[in-house]
């Protein structure tokens, strides 16, 4: 280890010694030289083992020394809920954030619904969790008031201490916890929450509560679960979707050192979002399982409705649009407006299949003994995971529920133990993939078959080739321009949907809906095919934004208008609010859209890019939030895109955690840039061609902008989740910036394939 004498210490030493430099230096001699001042440890101090915690609420315990333990019930995927949701409790509880520690809760009905997704956790928790904090504070104040024999109205709280000014008495939460834990919780309807002007925690920046553990190797994710006696397994999956195992020759696989067993997975009648076919290799360690898996010789069944290639897929889309289109929304008469137009703009956008590829490979650990199933999984829908496990185990779920509620019948009492314990681990990224609990079901299946605790791990290749992809889609658009105005906007969409995820359809209420007189969106989904598609970060919007912002740019260019100016003209001076039939509704606000467009244009110096730099604009509404983005790029060559700056303007209601909020906006932008530039999967002979990060490229440090600026429109409306909303427009801003730089319009993705 190199030791360097630090200049500051050197001077300090020589001045203390009172003498010259020689004297100071000789105190240390040659062997030991002073090092840089020691930095404080980032790890929390060890807890006093004698401290007792009292549960004052399901969500919080208070230690006798005033330490507050808050339960985080929602799965943490990197979206920051493990920090922001406890902030809501801590604010109303009136404690110092530095006294708070956050613990991940297991799946338990007492916490209410514990799934995260759709950017909903923070808005769902906004009132309930603040009431949890307020209710606990009220109990603690009551406990103090009772001890002092005074009225609660005479007491106030400051950072976890209850004060009675009149008598100069005070008691800390630590001293009151035991008494408060015995008291009846107040009626939630009677609780009055703080005025936002009194917030000390909400609206401020609080750091990710798990960073110290993450950067010291102490933070466990699902894949880090270690259980006594466990084995490891990996599953050979069908190369063509929906295929099943016809025959297996496992002779060579069994010869690999460390292999314990081979299990064929038969999904039976289970839905493909629950369980897929495969052959599991069980071994003493992961590597042996993955090596042996490659040596399996498997014959797979033929698949009906197989899509063989991307070309075949596009042909299906073209045909579907021609013959099966049905309007999702139809206002005015777009055909008439188009035939009367001064100018018609037409474009076709092709959006490819996209994989989620979260950094932590899919995995689940399961241990079964005597009817008790214990699961550790990085799963954002633990209730669904538990349900799938119960189905695989053939447990009686109604009985399980009665037992959980203490309402067992006589028959229940005589029936065997059927219990599922679900530990929600920290999740290494999701982007929508962890909404599907197939990776829980297959681990329960294998554990049940081999009767040993087992961790099923998917390789990266497994993950990329056995996903529920962002659906591929085709968008054919026409706009009419007459007398300098956009008089019609007609979009026809076809996409690869799936029967088993009902309710999926492209929205027909995205801007410029409500602002163009003749407006129509038609939809012709393809449902008869074998490709699994599903929710990927900002479902539908991750394609809609590319198309809407791209086509808006095209229309502006055709009109000789600035794209920001055109958007503002279409919105008008006082844009109103309209019904929004889709997730994120019930309303969409033209005013909020205008606010973010104007804020981005102002902060991003729209129209004033320095020489050699080009700007692209995009704005979109996703799940309750409005985001406008400007990318400022240069292109050193026709195939290279250098992103200098991205300016973002966001309306998300109240910003709960300023640090986390910024991070989510930045993260969505980077993800969007990568997806636009490189994201896309290709099909050949019915199989996904890409398999790992060498051929499925993602954004790297080399593509990240030099600078990302995030600006929020001030608001005290309820918070909207920020995990998704910056992702859709980030893809479009790049395409539009490239048009500004080269005159080349990007209508097919990934962009890298289109350049050069």
């Amino acid at each position, binding site marked *: *280890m*190199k030791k*360097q004498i630090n200049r500051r210490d050197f001077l300090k030493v020589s001045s203390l010694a009172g003498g010259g430099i020689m004297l100071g230096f000789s105190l240390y001699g040659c062997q030991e030289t002073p090092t*840089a001042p020691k*930095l*404080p*440890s*980032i*790890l929390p101090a060890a807890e006093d083992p004698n401290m007792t915690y009292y549960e004052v609420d399901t969500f919080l315990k208070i230690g006798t020394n005033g330490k507050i333990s808050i339960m985080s019930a929602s799965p*943490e995927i*990197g*979206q920051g809920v493990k920090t922001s949701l406890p902030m809501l409790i801590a604010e109303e509880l009136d404690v110092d954030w530095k006294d708070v520690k956050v613990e991940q809760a297991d799946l338990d009905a007492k916490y209410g619904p514990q799934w995260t997704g759709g950017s909903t956790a923070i808005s769902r928790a906004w009132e309930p969790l603040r009431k949890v904090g307020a209710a606990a504070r009220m109990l603690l104040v009551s406990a103090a008031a009772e001890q002092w024999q005074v009225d609660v109205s005479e007491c106030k709280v400051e950072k976890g201490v209850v004060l009675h000014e009149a008598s100069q008495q005070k008691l800390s939460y630590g001293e009151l916890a035991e008494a408060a834990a015995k008291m009846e919780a107040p009626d939630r309807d009677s609780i009055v929450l703080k005025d936002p002007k009194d917030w000390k925690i909400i609206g401020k920046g609080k*750091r*990710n509560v*798990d*960073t110290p553990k*993450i*950067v*010291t*190797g102490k933070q*466990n*994710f699902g*894949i*880090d679960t270690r259980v006594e006696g466990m084995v*490891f397994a990996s599953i050979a999956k069908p190369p063509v979707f929906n295929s099943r195992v016809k025959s297996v020759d496992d002779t060579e696989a069994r010869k690999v050192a*460390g292999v314990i067993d081979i299990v064929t997975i038969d999904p039976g009648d289970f839905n493909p979002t629950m369980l897929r076919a495969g052959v599991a290799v069980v071994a003493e*360690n*992961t*590597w042996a399982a993955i090596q042996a898996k490659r040596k399996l010789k498997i014959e797979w069944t033929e698949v009906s409705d197989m899509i063989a290639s991307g070309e075949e897929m596009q042909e299906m889309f073209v045909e579907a649009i021609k013959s099966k289109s049905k309007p999702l929304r139809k206002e005015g008469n777009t055909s008439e407006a188009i035939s009367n137009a001064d100018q018609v703009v037409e474009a076709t956008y092709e959006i490819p299949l996209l994989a989620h*590829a979260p*950094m*932590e*490979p899919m995995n689940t650990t399961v241990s079964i003994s005597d009817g008790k199933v214990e699961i550790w999984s990085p799963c954002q829908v633990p209730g669904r995971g538990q349900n799938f496990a119960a189905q695989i185990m053939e447990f009686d779920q109604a009985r399980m529920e009665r037992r959980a509620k203490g309402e067992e019948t006589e028959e229940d009492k005589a029936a065997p133990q059927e219990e599922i314990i679900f530990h929600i681990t*920290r*999740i*290494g*990224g*999701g982007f929508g993939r962890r909404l599907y609990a197939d990776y829980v079901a297959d681990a329960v299946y294998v554990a049940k078959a081999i009767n040993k605790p087992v961790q099923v*791990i998917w390789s*990266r290749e497994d993950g990329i080739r056995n996903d529920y992809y962002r659906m591929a889609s085709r968008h054919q658009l026409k706009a009419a321009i007459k007398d300098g105005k956009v008089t019609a906007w007609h979009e026809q969409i076809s996409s690869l949907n799936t029967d088993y995820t009902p309710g999926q359809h492209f929205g027909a209420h995205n801007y410029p809906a409500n602002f163009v007189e003749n407006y129509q969106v038609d939809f012709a989904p393809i449902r008869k095919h074998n490709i699994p598609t599903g929710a990927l970060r900002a479902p539908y919007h991750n394609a809609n934004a590319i198309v809407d912002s791209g086509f808006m740019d095209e229309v502006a260019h055709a009109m000789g208008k600035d794209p920001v100016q055109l958007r503002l003209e279409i919105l008008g001076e006082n844009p109103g609010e309209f019904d929004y039939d889709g997730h994120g509704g019930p309303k969409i606000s033209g005013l909020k859209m205008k606010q973010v467009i104007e804020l981005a244009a102002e902060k991003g110096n729209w129209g004033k890019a320095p020489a050699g730099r080009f700007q692209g604009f995009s704005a979109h509404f996703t799940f309750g939030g409005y985001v406008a983005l400007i990318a400022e790029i240069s292109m050193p060559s026709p195939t290279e895109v250098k992103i200098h700056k991205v300016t973002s303007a966001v309306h998300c209601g109240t910003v709960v955690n300023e*640090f*986390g909020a910024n*991070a*989510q906006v*930045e*993260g969505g*932008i*980077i*993800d969007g840039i*990568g997806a636009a530039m490189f994201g896309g999967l290709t099909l050949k002979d019915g199989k996904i061609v890409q398999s*790992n*990060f*060498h051929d499925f490229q*993602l*954004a*790297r*440090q*080399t593509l*990240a902008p030099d*600078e990302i600026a995030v600006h929020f429109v001030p608001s005290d409306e309820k918070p909207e989740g920020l995990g998704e909303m910056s992702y859709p427009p980030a893809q479009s801003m790049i395409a539009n910036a490239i048009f500004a730089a080269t005159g080349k319009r990007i209508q097919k993705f990934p962009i890298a394939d289109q350049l050069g």
Partner: protein
Amino acid sequence: MAKFFLNINNETREMDVDPNMPLLWVLRDVLGLTGTKFGCGIAQCGCCTVHLEGEAIRSCITPISQAKGKKVVTIEGLSPEGNHPLQVAWVEEDAPQCGYCQAGQVMNAAALLDKNPNPTDQEIIDAMAGNLCRCGTYNRIRKAIKNAAEKGGTGS
């Protein structure tokens, strides 16, 4: 199978494994050191980065036979007290989101600062280009590395 001795985080560990087993799986499955992560298995993501004789390597493609008798440092051993300038900077800059890639990021950055205590922005980008982050924390990682460099970066 063969017997190997390795010095891991200043401790000698003995194991009896296939000489071809990558160091990543020896660490995670044989020795129970799960701080080093599996992301791709083909050295494309950097999650598995550890130090071998002071150099940052991708442990997913390094067979245990190559590490025999050498000094290995993992994220758990970078600074047992949790006060390496990069760890402190990572907290200050609030870098991680999901956190899965971050151990590999920190280990790669530690090797960079050991060799180049005051890297330029471009040097940081080039050195860290092999470490993927799906959550997009790249800008904060750059800031954290510069922050750590200002603190005297190497932690030694």
